């Protein structure tokens, strides 16, 4: 008789947990949607959703909250991936929210559409009647997120109430909600940045090219390396520089910074992530620098 070893590695255990969450939502909700930014976390999320329902197609659409300020490589990736998988893509456009007067564009050189996304997102959830929205947020990203549930209840205003969250025990998720309310679901809650990269490597998941080292013209602003383009004009006295960089996160081009790196393969990135001394949001996101509780405040209003 052989003695089998019934051990599951950490990536397999995380995958099993995420797949369980996807299936739970598909079984209990009427209109779920997967929020897809083209960033690595939402790419991993989509990959896990595909596994959860195979050989059937993913039984819900994918939604991109589009600020209009995209990296072209990311849009190209989004359209290709969605076509391959045969899932429906819904685009919620911040530009349309601006044009219809739902939100007002910020002015000034440091204007960002990042906060406007919340209104566009909530309007789309209401318009399409989505009752569950999968997000790729991880608890290791940020301290407010460290306290959030896998099933995170939102009231009819889309608000998160951190002091009044439902206890979440075992793997029993409470998705009950009234009409007009919804649940944000975070299948990657227990993944870290390193887990994500290790998994991308193991599963050979393709990514937009900007995640890997490349030469780029950039401008140094507020301690970050930003990409000057039509949406991010240079300020007086600013000069561009050339550098070999990669992106650790992908968001709106006006607030997503690049990091200097020569990592050109997933293996290089895993090694770099394991050795890095800065969090990914701290290194690359201007939107989190507003205050100590910037993320908590935005999440209260209905942000991702």
């Amino acid at each position, binding site marked *: 008789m052989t003695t089998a070893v019934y051990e599951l590695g950490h990536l397999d255990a995380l995958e099993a947990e995420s797949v369980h969450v996807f299936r739970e939502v598909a079984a209990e909700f009427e209109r779920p949607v997967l929020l897809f930014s083209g960033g690595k976390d939402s790419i991993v999320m989509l990959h896990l959703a595909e596994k959860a329902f*195979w050989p059937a197609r993913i039984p819900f659409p994918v939604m991109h909250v589009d600020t209009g300020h995209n990296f072209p490589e990311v849009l190209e990736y989004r359209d290709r991936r969605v076509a391959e998988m045969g899932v429906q893509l819904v685009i919620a456009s911040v530009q349309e929210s601006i044009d219809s007067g739902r939100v007002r564009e910020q002015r000034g050189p440091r204007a960002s559409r990042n906060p406007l996304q919340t209104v566009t997102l909530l309007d789309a959830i209401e318009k399409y009647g989505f009752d569950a929205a999968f997000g790729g947020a991880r608890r290791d990203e940020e*301290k407010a997120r460290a306290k959030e549930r896998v099933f995170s209840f939102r009231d009819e205003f889309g608000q998160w109430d951190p*002091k009044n969250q439902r*206890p979440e025990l075992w793997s029993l998720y409470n998705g009950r909600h009234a009409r007009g309310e919804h649940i944000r679901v975070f299948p990657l*809650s227990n993944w870290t940045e390193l887990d994500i990269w290790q998994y991308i490597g193991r599963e050979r998941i393709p990514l937009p090219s900007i995640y890997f080292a490349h030469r780029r013209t950039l401008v140094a602003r507020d301690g970050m390396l930003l990409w000057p383009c039509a949406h991010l004009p240079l300020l007086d006295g600013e000069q561009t520089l050339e550098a070999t960089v990669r992106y650790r996160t992908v968001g709106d081009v006006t607030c997503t910074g690049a990091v200097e790196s020569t990592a050109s393969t997933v293996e290089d990135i895993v090694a770099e992530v394991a050795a890095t001394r*800065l969090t990914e949001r701290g290194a690359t996101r201007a939107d989190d620098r507003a205050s100590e509780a910037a993320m908590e405040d935005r999440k209260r209003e209905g942000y991702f």
Partner: protein
Amino acid sequence: MEMLRFATAGSVDDGKSTLIGRLLYDTKSIFTDQLEAVERTSAQRGDEYTNLALLTDGLRAEREQGITIDVAYRYFATPRRKFIVADTPGHIQYTRNMVTGASTANAALILVDARKGLLEQSRRHAFLASLLRVPHLVLCVNKMDLVDYDQGVFDAIAAEFRNFASKLDIGDLTVIPMSALAGDNVVSRSVNMPWYEGTSLLHHLEELHIASDRNLIDVRFPVQYVIRPYSGSHLDYRGYAGQVAGGVLKPGDDVVVLPSGLPSRIHSIETKDGPVAEAFPPMSVTVRLEDEIDISRGDMICRPHNQPSVSQDVEAMVCWMHDDPMRPGGKYAIKHTTRSARALVKELRYRLDVNTLHRDEEAATLGLNEIGRLRLRVTAPLFTDPYRVNRTTGSFILVDEATNATVGAGMIL
């Protein structure tokens, strides 16, 4: 690399945040920008030292009040294991948070201050860990530097705790003398306590044998979702998706499906990456059977001669989690594995004092953070095992049908 989840219980005074900070710092899991933010905030508040609690107490209300309110999850890894820490508050008014953190934990760390010895809350934490069947318990006798690393002090606390723990159902207990602040026995063995022959805390957590914590004997597969692609090459495909809750499933195994009791055999166990020869907890897989029988979400696949209890009557220990108290006669939604139904509280048999373990049989209600033994009548049969045999098929939650709040957490007897 295996993953280990542990819960920590204790208050700031016990050095819990310092201990977690030390584990994160020494495993290089705290980032420079996080540390700088904490140092900045500490300085602004006038703290005398860098308050590592600010790393985990992320909510505005927590920072304002200087307390941990909710469970914070932290992550770190060593070359041997990935760790998930559920950092839970220690005060009695947050019992529900500790219960939540302990529900998924492989191990629980209880901190005591060597100068103070066991307190009421240390006993409460040990009781909650045993109630939630956390398989491994570690008593961290902290602040040994403040008692001159005295073996006598440590031995007395360890003996008192072992004596108390023997009355509880605790599988595996380890007691470690340490100083989180000075780093003694946290990551590496201390030179200050040559009399201590055990390992450091981190080494202990890395070596802890957790494979046997799961139930690998009793096959339990709650059907979560039925996969029917209705397309091209998979026109007749019908697979039962779910997460294995117990036992080891193999193709060719004879099974029965509850509640119908219909027999079949496992045709194959599938994933997108290909078929698997064996499925065990906590794998998420898709099971295909040889016979076409009517199966839906909430059904359970098990072995013919090893079935769970099938009953509408449930006896359980319940931790109440809401301001509105539980009253006998109350009706709640119940969620057990993948099955949802309604439950009526027939009787509160007793309320347990979590500090003294005294049973109050006269109690009429269960308030927030209180624990009691209930008898429930459920609208549909549940397929259950005692919680001590299987934490997945032995647990449930109660939900208020009007507010949709999760109000109770139950462990089946």
